[in-house]
């Protein structure tokens, strides 16, 4: 992305695509929430609403062949990487047409073709995996970076620590992105650490670190683009804190009594989608009507995905033992 930034038309096309991607995620998550209430989705369901600019901005700054891996709040990450709404909704419904064949569920989205390495539900446990993906790229001398996302609550897991030390020691090209949405379940960041700023934790490893506003999709894209541009040369890891906010409860079952309505309202005033819309309109690259049309397209696609998921079959019980070992297994 960084290279093409120069040509204004391509930029606009790309930015309108970023807007569409954010609208898709928002529409998908709202539809998922509704379907969950209707009892069509099992287990835990963690919504991404409010954080769309984080994944859309950062993915806009990398190449399709780059790797990404994330935690269990992963719907947006799959969608931004190119997984279809149909495959995502079908996964939530536990259907065979789902991105994980209906066997992973909300917390375990995977999409190999789009270099999306999951969807991991043990807090912090995938952070060493992110280092491993970057290790593999270096091992093969590939020009490839890995983006590894996790929440503000994950930085207190041992796995985080061991991976960060290995990434700096071995100079692994991994961008660690902490999506700081202010809370780990009901625990605000200041109740989980004595650090003033999360990205300062990089100091304990001699790892480059920085922070960026996660409600501004352009800021995220440009900041990540710069980091990744350097990383392709130096291979050095970077710890990026992206400040964002989760509009909904931690999961569908969380009333979120630990924060005030006012706090949520204030956060929504900086909504990443509306902010970006207004920027594009004031710059003349978008009209109110075009925006409405985009929004409708996204919402239609989301409701389409429900129909698709409804009409999809369960994985057949005859396959019960098919997925325990590698499909290549003799």
């Amino acid at each position, binding site marked *: 992305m960084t290279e093409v930034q120069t040509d204004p038309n391509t930029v606009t096309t790309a930015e309108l695509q970023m807007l569409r991607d954010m609208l898709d995620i928002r529409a998908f998550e709202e539809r998922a929430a509704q379907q969950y209430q209707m009892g069509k989705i099992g287990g835990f369901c963690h919504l991404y609403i409010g954080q769309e600019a984080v994944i859309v901005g950062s993915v806009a700054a990398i190449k399709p062949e780059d790797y990404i891996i994330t935690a269990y709040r992963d719907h947006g990450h799959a969608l931004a990487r190119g997984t279809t709404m149909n495959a995502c909704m079908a996964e939530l419904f536990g259907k065979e047409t789902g991105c994980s064949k209906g066997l992973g569920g909300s917390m375990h989205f995977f999409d190999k073709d789009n270099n999306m390495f999951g969807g991991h539900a043990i807090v912090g446990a995938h952070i060493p995996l992110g280092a491993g993906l970057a290790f593999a790229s270096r091992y093969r001398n590939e020009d490839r970076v890995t983006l590894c996302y996790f929440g503000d609550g994950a930085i207190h897991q041992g796995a985080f620590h061991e991976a960060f030390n290995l990434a700096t020691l071995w100079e692994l090209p991994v961008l660690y992105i902490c999506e700081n949405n202010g809370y780990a379940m009901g625990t605000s960041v200041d*109740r989980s650490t004595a650090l003033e700023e999360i990205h300062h934790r990089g100091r304990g490893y001699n790892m480059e670190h920085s922070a960026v506003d996660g409600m501004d999709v352009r800021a995220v894209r440009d900041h990540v683009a710069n980091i990744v541009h350097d990383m392709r040369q130096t291979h050095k890891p970077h710890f990026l804190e992206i400040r964002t906010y989760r509009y909904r409860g931690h999961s569908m079952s969380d009333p979120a009594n630990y924060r005030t309505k006012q706090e949520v309202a204030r956060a929504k005033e900086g909504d990443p989608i509306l902010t970006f819309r207004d920027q594009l309109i004031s710059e003349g690259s978008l009209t109110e009507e075009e925006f409405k049309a985009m929004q409708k397209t996204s919402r239609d696609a989301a409701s389409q995905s429900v129909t698709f998921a409804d009409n999809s079959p369960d994985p057949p019980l005859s396959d019960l033992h098919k997925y325990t070992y590698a499909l290549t297994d003799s």
Partner: protein
Amino acid sequence: MRTITYREAVREALIEEMNRDESVFLMGEEVAEYNGAYKISEGMLDQFGPKRVIDTPISENGFAGLGVGAAMAGLRPVVEFMTFSFSLVAFDQLVNNAPNMVTMSGGQFHIPMVFRGPNGPVHALGATHSHATENFYANVPGLKVCTPGTIRDAKGLLKTAIRDDNPVVVLESEKLYNSSGEIEDIETELLIPLGHANVLREGSDCTLITYAQTVPTVLALAEKIKTELNVDCEVIDLRSIRPLDTDTIFQSIAKTNRAVIIEQNRPVCGIGAQITYEIQHEIFDELDAPVARVAQIDIPMPYNESWEDHVFPNETRITDAIKEVCYL
């Protein structure tokens, strides 16, 4: 007598023991301000304050180990794991530090501590969140392991565990938190000793051995089996896995000469295997049929509900096992 929920029973145990002993405190993720991820500790922060009801960061290995250290210094920590699937990141603290201290110090130090929380598959949480860990912890000498499957046991076993001078792993069942049942009045001190299985239903034809979340299922099924197959099953709730009450098991089988073990966990090297070894080794001649075991189907837990229902021990597979040992 009165009727309360399993969740309330656990809470009563915590409150009573914390009232009784200043050195008891509760520590874990979201136990205080959030009132517990599963609302076990609802209201306890208000009652005992932040000194004794303590929210932790997501650092299971850290706060489990902190608890072990505090126990060495004489406190009696109750560490909550949001679920025992997350105890796997703290495994070394439970398997190395807590159980080995008495031996390694030649008896100078012991660890009066409880690790508790929901354990075992719940509902469509997928492979990472559905672990049953009882066989891991039962393997470790120095630990004690109990698995309340009734409302009374949820309170009585936990109270005993908190007073025990050893590390006790109390494996609750999220699926039972909302279930309710009869229990003694709040005035009566309810202490249920570890190592005493409970015969929940008397029967003459076949012994059903189970524990934790499958206890209600098996009890209900026993009635159905009586009417439908006219097989009169005796139902044993193990209550505690380590120590294990083999006497009660042997006495029952001496009567029924048949046994089926129903476990919420995966089969390989599980509780069912262990109990089967004991049965065949000690009372081989009492058996009129091989012991049958109904466990999870041996695959990682899938998210899809129909698959999950199939993987988890269900009525069909339990009934088939009963028919098998009764040669029906």
